[in-house]
């Protein structure tokens, strides 16, 4: 699942339409939209709201460590970047607390990149700001996001909307900033999603279920379960399957002694000639 946290409906609308997301009923005033692959929450403006929305979306929908979490929205540019330019944030500072966050910069992209400072109030003067970009959400988002997911799953993507000259931004303009960049944003989401799904475990969920089943049906202790899991991993790396366990799948031990004997039998099966002790 990709989780998107966005401040305003007009920013989110192009994505909601593009991915044909439907609104989920909820009791908060942070609308949640989703389909089977993406969940988008509209946080409203500000760091605290962004933090709350992140935590709410994750807990409402349920999440796994292979999900991505992305803050997407508009930002002001301190160095007079062009409007509509997309920026990936490599350093995010909370102006109020002084806390600094460093997102992982693993993915290759064609956007610009820079530091961003999140403020609690709109900024209409770039003077004295050291960051490249400013917004009102990212620092709140990332502080919360890091409590839930691995760093490489968390991204902060901004579209430049103004050069901090204090002008009011019309909804249609904000809509177009995202809408015009939709293809580029979607391809980034795709890459971010792939990165989050990287998993080096050779034991599949089916294998886990099999080992759990054998362990629980035969009253193996936790430590026996972990030993078994590890031996199964060693065996699978060498043989590419766990078919050898099919012979014990229906075993049902009735007492401790039987459990111990079965455990030793499985150990021998998995170790076989492989561990150099024969």
């Amino acid at each position: 699942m990709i989780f998107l946290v966005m401040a305003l409906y007009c920013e989110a609308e192009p994505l909601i339409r593009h991915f044909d997301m439907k609104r989920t009923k909820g009791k908060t005033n942070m609308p949640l939209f989703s389909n089977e692959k993406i969940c988008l929450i509209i946080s409203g403006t500000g760091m605290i709201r962004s933090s709350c929305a992140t935590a709410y979306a994750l807990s409402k929908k349920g999440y796994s460590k292979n999900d991505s979490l992305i803050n997407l929205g508009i930002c002001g540019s301190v160095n007079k970047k062009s409007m509509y330019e997309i920026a990936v944030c490599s350093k995010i500072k909370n102006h109020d607390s002084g806390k600094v966050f460093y997102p992982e910069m693993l993915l290759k992209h064609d956007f610009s990149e820079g530091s961003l400072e999140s403020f609690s109030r709109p900024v209409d003067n770039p003077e004295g700001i050291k960051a490249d970009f400013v917004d009102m959400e990212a620092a709140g988002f990332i502080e919360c996001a890091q409590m839930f997911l691995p760093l490489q799953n968390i991204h902060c993507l901004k579209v430049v909307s103004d050069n901090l000259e204090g002008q009011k931004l019309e909804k249609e303009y904000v809509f177009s900033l995202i809408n015009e960049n939709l293809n580029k944003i979607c391809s980034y989401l795709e890459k971010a999603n792939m990165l989050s799904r990287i998993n080096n475990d050779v034991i599949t969920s089916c294998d886990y279920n099999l080992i759990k089943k054998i362990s629980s049906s035969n009253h193996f202790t936790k430590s026996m379960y972990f030993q078994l899991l590890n031996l199964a991993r060693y065996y699978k790396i060498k043989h590419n399957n766990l078919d050898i366990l099919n012979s014990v799948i229906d075993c049902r031990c009735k007492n401790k002694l039987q459990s111990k004997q079965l455990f030793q039998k499985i150990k021998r099966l998995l170790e076989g000639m492989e561990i150099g002790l024969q």
Partner: protein
Amino acid sequence: MDYNRIFSHIYCENEAFNYTLANQIIEKMRGAKLIGIDHYKDVFNRTGQNFHVQKNSQKLILAVKKDSFFYEGSGLCHGIDGYRPLYASQVLNCIYDCEYCYLQGTYPSSNIVIFVNTHDFLNAVNDELAKGPVHLAISYDSDLFALENLHGLSKHWIDFSRGKDNLLIEIRTKNKNYEAISSLLPADSFLLSWTILPDTIIQKYENGTSSLEARLKSVKMAIADGWQVRLCIDPVIYTDEWKQIYKNFLQAVFEYIDKDKLHDVTLGAFRMPSDYFKRSRKSRLDSEILSYPYEVVNGICKYPSKLEHELINYIKDMAGITLNTI
């Protein structure tokens, strides 16, 4: 997966900008994006990092070390009689990715930290030398030589070692880049150590290191130039057909290298402190080496004694020379 290239980003402590080495490295890596940071741990110690995913696009962190310039050597390493074993970690982490590497269980990140205040390290070692002879391992938490062209640190340490009778500095590598220092005069207090393993093991379990042949060429050149050279057959890894593999390997090595010209040859089977091992195993769920059912003795994960003895004794017999074992 479309990753950024290695060192696409350099994180530099604001204080480190005052050091020549930091600026030289930044200059060499001109295309990299530079990000100023207060303290290296703000990046290096972030929670939620994935050591292995980061290996696909390691970043460089330049920092100033404030204290603990060296540590007491571990009993798991080969020492030199009469010398107090110390190690200095001027660089943390390695550009290679060996399946058996303990660094994956040591640090929360695989990004590379270079401490740029070389003189503080050298001064700290000078203070220690006043207390007695020191055997100092300088590439303990890294393969220092592998990045020599970037930081040039080995050269500093070689120059530092000259004329110091009570110091023996050891640099250990799996890299073929002897040329990086070949223009220097050999130093009596400096030991160049190459870790060597059979090519089958290198190809299967080491990622990015130089081939055995390339390493041995470097060894030969270094010996010819007059350097003291140590070979480390370490960690010996158990694998299918291991006897044949190690037999062929030892034959090839000692046919090519004149054993009498070596400082010594060390030998050790795979071993790792069990807390590092647990973290390594957890982070690498596709590793044959790390899923082997080791035994834990006194907090050290190692092959079952019977197998360990068999591995070590076989290699000792086959090598036909005295090997320094743990």
